[in-house]
C-alpha cells in the first residue's frame, strides 16, 4: 500500500498501531492482536485493526456468552428460523409466521437516555422488517434505580420519551413491557426493547450474501461519524471517573425509518427472490452486516467505500466501516435487478447505492480512492478465538443461609396500602400513557393487563406478548430465578387465553470475566432452558448485554424474557378484570410462605436476602393448562397471575376499573396474601359454572370467595383481615409513580 489516500494521511501506520496499542482501547486484547498478526503474516493496518476490534467484540461476536447460548433449546415443530438471524420466526398456520426479537440499549441509554432508547427501538424494528415481516408491536422492558433519585427521574423521562417518540412516529403500537425499580440499577439502567412482526412465509428473507456476482446495495440514511465503536463501547464497563466514551452518541430519525420500513417491505413483496439477502446495519454498522452476510454464505465480499453515501466530508475507511449511523440496511440483490430495486428506494427519498459485490474468493476486501485498504479472510474475521470463561459460585450463595424472612405484620391493611404504592408494584400507566398502543387498530388488550393481545386481521387469531423477569429472584438463585422468569411470562400469556409458543431473551449481566457473574449467566440460562422445554416454548432469538456494572458493582442478573403466545379464537380473549358481582373467585395453586426476594421483604427490611424455594415445573405447567382449558371451555371469565405483591395485589388489580369489590377468606395468616409463591393464578367463574369448573380443576383450585357489588376489598386470613376501599387502593396504585416523578 504505497499511496495513502488523502483522508487517511493522519492515521497511524501499522507499526504505529502496534506501538501505541490503540486496539486495547477498542477492547481487543494483546493476545488477540498477536493472533491477528500471525494469521495475516503482517501487521494489520489501522482500518483492519478496527474491523477486528468490532467483529471480535462481545457485542458482535458473543464470544464470551456463546458457550451458554449454544445450550438454548431452539427447535420444535413451529420453528421456521431459530437464533442467528435478525429475528426468530415461528409458524402460526395459514402460511403466516410471527417474527420477534429483543435487544438491549443499556449503555447508550445511560449516557444519552432519549437517543439511546429511541435508537434501541429503531434497531429492533429493523431486525424485524429485515426478515420481510411487517412489525406489528413493540414492548419495552425497563429497570431503573430508586425513583426518589433525581437521576432516575431524568433517565426515566428521557428513556420513556425516546421510546414513545420513535415508536409512535413509526406507527407501530407499543403494547406492553415491564418496569422495575431497585438500587442495583442506579448507575446501570436497563433498556430492552422487543419487537414483534407478522410474516407471510413466502416473504421470508435472511441475511445471506449468496450468489457470486450479486450486488451489495446500501439503502437508507447516509453515513456520518455517529457512534463509532458503539459495539466495543457496549462491551466494556463504565468507569464513572472518565467521560471519554461519550462520542458514542447516535441520533435516530424515525421519519426516515418509517420510509425505510415501508419501502423495504414493499421491495421484498415486489422483487421476491431477486433480493437475495437483507440485513440491518446495527452495531459496528457496515462491517458487521457485510461480513456476517458473506460469512453465512461462505463467500467473499468486495466493497468500494467511495460509493457509500456520506453525510459528512472526509470520512475515512475506518469511520465508514465502523459508523453506527442509524436507519441503514444492506441488501444483496441479483445484478440485473439492482437498478430497479434502488429506484424504489430513491423514489421514497432514501439513499440506495450499489457499493460492491459478492465474490468467490472468501476474502473481505475494501477499496478506497483506488487503494485496497483491507484484505482479510471473511471466516477469520467473523470467528473470534474461543473463550473459556471461568465460573464460580458467588459467595452469597454458599455462605451460611440467611434465616428465612418471616414477616410480622401488626396492621396488614396498612402494609397492603404501602405495597400498592411501591414503584415496582404500582401502575405503570404514567409511563405507558405516552405510548401509542392503538395505532394499526389491532390491539385487543392494551397495556395494564397481563399480556397484550394483538389480533391478526382477516383471521380469528390473536398474538399475545409480554416481557418479564424479576432480577431479585435471579440474584437469590440464578437457576430458579431463570425458571421463574419463563414461568411468569408464560402465566401472563396464559391468563389472556393464549398458548405460549416461543421466547426471545435479553441477557443483562455484569462483567463476564468475573467468574461469579459468569456463573449467574450460565445458571440462569440453564433455568430458562429447563422451563422453556417444559412449556414447549423454544428460544428463537435474543440478545446479550454484559458489563452492566459501574466501579465493580454489577446489576442483579437480569435475563429478560420476551414471550409470544397464540390464541386461535379471538372470542376467548380474557382480561384480568372482574366481570360480575357474585362470580366465584378461585385460587389456582397453593400459597406458601415465599417471602425471600419479595416486594414485602424489600418494603419491610429495605433489602433482599435469603434462599428461594424451588418450584415444581410440572405443577407450573398443569396450572397453566388448567387456566387455558377453563378459558377455552368458557368457564373462566377473568384470570390474572400472581406476581409481585402476592395474591392481595392480584385481587386488587382485578377489581380496579370495575364497579366491584371482593370478599375472600383463606386459612393462612393474612401476611401470606403478600407471599410471592410460584405457579399461582386467581380466576373468576360464574356461579352456574361452579360444578363444571371444580370438576375440571379438582384439587388444583380452591374457592377463595366472591366478587361483590360494593367496592370493598376484604381479604381475611387466619389472624387478621385486610380491609380497604377499592377506590382508595386504586388511587394509591395509580398515582404513586406520577407523584414520585413530580416531586
Amino acid at each position, binding site marked *: 500500500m504505497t499511496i495513502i489516500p488523502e483522508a487517511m494521511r493522519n492515521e497511524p501506520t501499522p507499526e504505529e498501531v502496534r506501538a501505541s496499542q490503540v486496539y486495547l482501547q477498542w477492547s481487543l486484547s494483546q493476545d488477540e492482536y498477536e493472533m491477528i498478526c500471525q494469521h495475516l503474516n503482517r501487521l494489520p493496518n489501522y482500518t483492519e485493526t478496527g474491523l477486528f476490534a468490532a467483529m471480535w467484540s462481545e457485542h458482535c461476536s458473543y464470544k464470551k456468552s456463546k458457550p451458554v447460548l449454544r445450550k438454548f433449546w431452539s427447535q420444535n415443530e413451529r420453528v421456521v428460523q431459530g437464533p442467528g438471524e435478525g429475528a426468530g420466526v415461528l409458524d402460526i398456520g395459514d402460511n403466516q409466521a410471527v417474527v420477534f426479537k429483543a435487544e438491549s440499549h443499556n449503555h447508550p441509554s445511560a449516557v*444519552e437516555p432519549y*437517543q439511546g432508547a429511541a435508537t434501541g427501538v429503531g434497531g429492533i424494528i429493523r431486525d424485524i422488517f429485515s426478515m420481510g415481516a411487517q412489525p406489528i408491536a413493540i414492548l419495552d422492558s425497563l429497570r431503573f434505580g430508586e425513583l426518589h433519585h433525581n437521576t432516575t427521574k431524568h433517565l426515566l423521562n428521557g428513556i420513556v420519551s425516546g421510546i414513545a417518540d420513535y415508536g409512535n412516529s413509526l406507527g407501530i403500537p407499543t403494547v406492553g413491557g415491564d418496569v422495575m425499580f431497585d438500587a442495583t440499577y442506579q448507575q446501570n439502567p436497563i433498556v430492552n426493547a422487543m419487537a414483534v412482526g407478522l410474516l407471510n412465509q413466502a416473504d421470508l428473507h435472511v441475511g445471506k450474501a449468496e450468489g457470486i456476482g450479486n450486488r451489495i446495495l446500501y439503502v437508507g*440514511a447516509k453515513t*456520518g461519524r455517529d457512534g463509532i465503536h458503539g459495539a466495543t463501547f457496549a462491551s466494556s464497563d463504565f468507569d464513572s471517573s472518565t467521560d471519554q466514551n461519550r462520542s458514542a452518541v447516535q*441520533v*435516530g430519525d424515525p421519519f*426516515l425509518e418509517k420510509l425505510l420500513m415501508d419501502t423495504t417491505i414493499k421491495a421484498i413483496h415486489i422483487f421476491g427472490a431477486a433480493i437475495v439477502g437483507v440485513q440491518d446495519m446495527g452495531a459496528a454498522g457496515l462491517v458487521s452486516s457485510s461480513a456476517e452476510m458473506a460469512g453465512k454464505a461462505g463467500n467473499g465480499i468486495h466493497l468500494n467505500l467511495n460509493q457509500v453515501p456520506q*453525510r459528512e466530508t472526509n470520512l475515512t475507511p475506518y469511520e465508514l466501516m465502523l459508523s453506527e449511523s442509524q436507519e441503514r440496511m444492506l441488501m444483496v440483490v441479483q445484478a440485473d435487478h439492482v437498478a430497479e430495486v434502488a429506484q424504489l428506494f430513491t423514489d421514497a427519498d432514501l439513499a440506495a447505492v450499489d457499493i460492491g459485490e459478492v465474490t468467490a474468493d472468501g476474502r473481505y476486501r475494501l477499496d478506497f480512492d483506488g487503494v485496497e485498504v483491507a484484505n482479510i479472510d471473511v471466516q477469520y474475521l467473523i470467528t473470534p478465538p474461543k473463550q473459556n470463561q471461568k465460573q464460580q459460585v458467588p459467595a452469597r450463595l454458599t455462605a451460611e443461609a440467611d434465616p428465612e424472612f418471616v414477616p410480622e405484620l401488626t396492621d396488614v391493611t396498612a402494609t397492603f396500602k404501602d405495597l400498592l404504592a411501591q414503584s415496582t408494584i404500582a401502575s405503570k400507566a404514567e409511563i405507558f400513557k405516552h405510548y401509542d398502543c392503538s395505532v394499526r387498530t389491532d390491539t385487543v388488550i392494551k397495556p395494564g393487563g397481563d399480556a397484550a393481545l394483538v389480533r391478526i386481521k382477516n383471521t380469528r387469531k390473536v398474538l399475545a406478548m409480554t416481557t418479564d423477569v424479576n432480577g431479585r429472584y435471579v440474584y437469590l438463585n440464578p437457576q430458579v430465578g431463570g425458571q421463574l422468569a419463563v414461568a411468569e411470562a408464560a402465566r401472563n400469556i396464559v391468563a389472556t387465553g393464549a398458548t405460549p409458543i416461543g421466547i426471545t431473551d435479553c441477557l443483562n449481566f455484569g462483567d463476564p470475566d468475573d467468574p461469579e457473574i459468569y456463573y449467574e449467566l450460565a445458571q440462569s440460562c440453564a433455568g430458562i432452558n429447563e422451563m422453556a422445554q417444559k412449556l414447549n416454548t423454544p428460544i428463537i432469538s435474543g440478545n446479550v448485554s454484559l458489563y452492566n456494572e459501574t466501579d465493580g458493582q454489577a446489576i442483579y442478573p437480569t435475563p429478560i424474557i420476551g414471550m409470544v403466545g397464540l390464541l386461535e379464537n379471538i372470542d376467548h380473549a380474557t382480561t384480568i378484570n372482574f366481570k360480575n358481582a357474585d362470580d366465584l373467585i378461585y385460587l389456582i395453586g397453593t400459597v406458601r410462605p415465599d417471602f425471600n426476594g419479595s416486594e414485602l421483604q424489600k418494603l419491610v427490611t429495605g433489602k433482599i436476602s435469603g434462599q428461594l424455594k424451588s418450584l415444581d415445573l410440572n405443577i407450573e405447567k398443569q396450572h397453566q393448562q388448567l387456566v387455558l382449558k377453563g378459558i377455552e371451555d368458557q368457564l373462566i371469565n377473568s384470570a390474572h397471575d400472581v406476581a409481585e405483591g402476592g395474591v392481595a395485589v392480584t385481587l386488587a388489580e382485578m377489581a380496579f376499573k370495575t364497579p366491584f369489590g371482593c370478599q375472600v377468606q383463606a386459612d393462612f395468616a393474612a401476611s401470606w396474601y403478600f407471599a410471592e409463591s410460584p405457579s399461582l393464578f386467581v380466576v373468576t367463574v360464574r356461579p352456574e359454572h361452579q360444578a363444571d369448573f371444580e370438576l375440571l380443576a379438582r384439587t388444583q383450585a380452591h374457592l377463595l370467595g366472591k366478587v361483590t357489588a360494593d367496592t370493598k376489598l376484604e381479604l381475611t386470613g387466619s389472624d387478621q383481615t385486610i380491609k380497604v376501599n377499592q377506590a382508595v387502593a386504586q388511587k394509591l396504585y395509580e398515582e404513586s409513580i406520577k407523584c414520585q416523578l413530580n416531586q
Partner: protein
Amino acid sequence: MMYLGKVYVSYKPSVFDPQGDVIKTSLHQLNFQGVESVTQGKYFEIKLVATNLTEATANLVKMAEELLINPNTETYQYAIDEIEVL
C-alpha cells in the same frame, strides 16, 4: 436587577440533525435553491434576577450547562443584557 439572557443551542458539527435535513429539502422544493444547509437548534429567553451582570452571566452559563444543553450532542452561545423591570 433584572436581566434577559438569550441562549442559542445547536448540535455539534458531526451530530445528525434530521429536522434540519427535512427543512432543507422542503426549502429546495419551495424554490429556495440557494440553500446549502439548515440546522435547527433551540432558542431560550430567560428572565432572571441577580445582583449584577457578572452574577447573572455566571448563572446563565450554569443553567445552560446543567439543564439547557445536552453536552453529548449540543453546544451553545449566549448573550445577556440588563432590562427594565416593567
